[in-house]
């Protein structure tokens, strides 16, 4: 129990630290969020009237006369109430709407791709590690080369080949825009079809890391005594590989998976940029480019909560898959 109390304590402190950073960083950035709105107004012609500017500042609460500390406390209060404020770049939409609209896309696309790449990497890594010395070993350098390639570069080239040239996959977007999003087969199959290429690029570029980690752990584990015992017991190869070697070797990868799950959100920025995918990553970019403090803070909150949540789940999961961490008895 104390273990869990400590864990929860850690998560709370981490959350607080992250929230504070979220608060500080945007405020340290140059420029003023209202400028972006003014620029948009200006684009429609005319000189922006100082009155109009002032009224927008009021509307967005962007007047910086308030002392930082009281801003901080009202910020914490708002966060606690789940009030993330109003997005400047999508004015007057509340930040929560903006995030809510784009988050599912990212979670589904990048989440599933990360999961696939994890499973694939772990399975291949287990195989390669178990049968080291065979031709399978050549998979390792091959996949590490793929993970050393800049992701967007790879993605652009794959998109050029498979979408532009061969036309196997659609080039851009998250679904066939002539369909209305909803839980119907047509839409879902279109979303899957549109998501395939982006997901593929994520899998290709990240599978190598999992593979290598799993392979190395597998090699280490293979020389553990219990593997030898299992062999002496006359167990079948496959059983030894899965239940004895892989079962133990996978533990560090699972911990790594938790962390990487948390980065699903932030890692998706580039993907979404390349494929015009309607996710949270592009919103973050938009927020940064538009000095959209509130949106930035909201997305940071989401990311932090996601990372913390993923870690917490794995902490709990770890107790199940690794009995040694279980407390009690």
């Amino acid at each position, binding site marked *: 129990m104390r273990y869990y109390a400590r864990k929860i304590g850690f998560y709370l402190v981490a959350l607080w630290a992250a929230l504070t950073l979220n608060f500080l960083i945007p405020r340290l950035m140059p420029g003023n969020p209202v400028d972006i709105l003014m620029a948009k107004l200006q684009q429609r012609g005319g000189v922006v009237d100082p009155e109009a500017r002032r009224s927008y500042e009021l509307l967005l609460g962007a007047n910086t006369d308030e002392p930082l500390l009281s801003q901080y406390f009202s910020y914490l209060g708002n966060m606690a109430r789940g009030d993330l404020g109003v997005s400047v770049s999508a004015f007057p939409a509340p930040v929560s709407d903006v995030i809510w609209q784009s988050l599912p896309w990212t979670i589904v696309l990048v989440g599933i791709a990360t999961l696939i790449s994890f499973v694939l990497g772990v399975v291949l890594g287990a195989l390669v590690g178990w049968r080291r010395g065979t031709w399978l070993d050549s998979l390792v350098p091959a996949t590490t080369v793929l993970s050393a390639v800049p992701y967007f570069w790879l993605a652009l080239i794959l998109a050029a080949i498979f979408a532009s040239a061969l036309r196997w996959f659609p080039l851009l977007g998250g679904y066939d825009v002539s369909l209305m999003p909803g839980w119907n087969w047509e839409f879902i199959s279109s979303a899957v079809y549109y998501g395939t290429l982006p997901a593929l690029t994520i899998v290709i570029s990240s599978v190598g890391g999992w593979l290598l980690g799993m392979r190395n752990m597998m090699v280490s584990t293979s020389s553990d*005594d219990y593997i030898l*015992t299992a062999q002496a017991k006359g*167990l079948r190869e496959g059983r030894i590989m899965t239940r004895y070697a892989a079962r133990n070797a996978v533990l560090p990868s699972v911990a790594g998976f938790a962390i990487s799950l948390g980065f699903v959100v932030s890692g998706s920025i580039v993907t979404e940029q390349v494929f015009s995918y309607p996710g949270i990553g592009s919103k973050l970019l938009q927020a940064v480019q538009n000095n959209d403090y509130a949106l930035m803070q909201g997305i940071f909150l989401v990311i932090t909560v996601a990372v913390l949540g993923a870690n917490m789940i794995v902490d709990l999961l770890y107790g199940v898959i690794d*009995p*040694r961490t279980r407390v009690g*008895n």
Partner: protein
Amino acid sequence: MTVPTQTSPQPGPATANDVVLTVDRLNVMYQVDNPVHAVKDVSLTLRRGEILGLAGESGCGKTTLAYAINRLHKPPAEVTSGSITFHDRGGRDIDLLALENEELRAFRWSKLSMVFQGAMNALNPVISIRAQLEDVLTTHEPKMSKQQRRERCAEVLRLVGVDPARMNSFPHEFSGGMRQRVMIAMALLLDPQVIIMDEPTTALDVVVQRGILQEILRLRDELGYAVIFITHDLPLLLELSDRIAVMLKGEVVEYATAEQIYRLPAHPYTRRLLDSFPSLTGDRGAFLRTGESSARDHATEPDPTKGKRP
């Protein structure tokens, strides 16, 4: 130091039926850059129900020999020559070195099981004791029902003095001694004819060690398996085993009954080993406290009180 080994000390007549395992002029090499000849021309016979002690200092090839017998050696280790024959209960002789994959797998554990040097680590840390025990049964006795399996596991655990109620525990929940008992229980599962024990108690407390040794002896009496017991603790072997083979740099330099080795060690190395264990209750005298050279001097001096030297 190449003292020709007696291939068969034969302290008693060994009928063909009596012998369960024959190792004949076995050679094992580690084929690394500078090849290591880890086992040289070793010949041993193991009789049913016998405890054969294998003694020798670290690195002399005890483990290598044990692995070779069970065909567990992996490259770079390689059996370069010799033979290992298992004489099955029914009278069938099995050439272990000729076994192919599936036969070998079926042979392992059912006829010859092992308890390893580091038994602490010989159990898979993430699956329960029960699963590890049942694994053996599901593989080797696929026809057994679930109920039967569970009963058999409980039975062997009871044999070694572990409460079967703790079957669902994980290895880390046991003490070292209990883990070692679980390993022994596992070795007994299929009622093997031979158990190889590679330093099964070295890491344990003397009190715990003693308890386990007693258990092994008692079970041997009950179940009648033969044991190859590997350790470098010669006094322990002397107390425990029927015959002892002393190994030095891959060779068996002395192979005789325990009594013989204790009373009349033939090889100087055996004598040195014996000297390395001062007697607990024996005369203290000037044994150690007179300086380094005295130990060696002492080794050549007859000790009238113990009468262990010719």
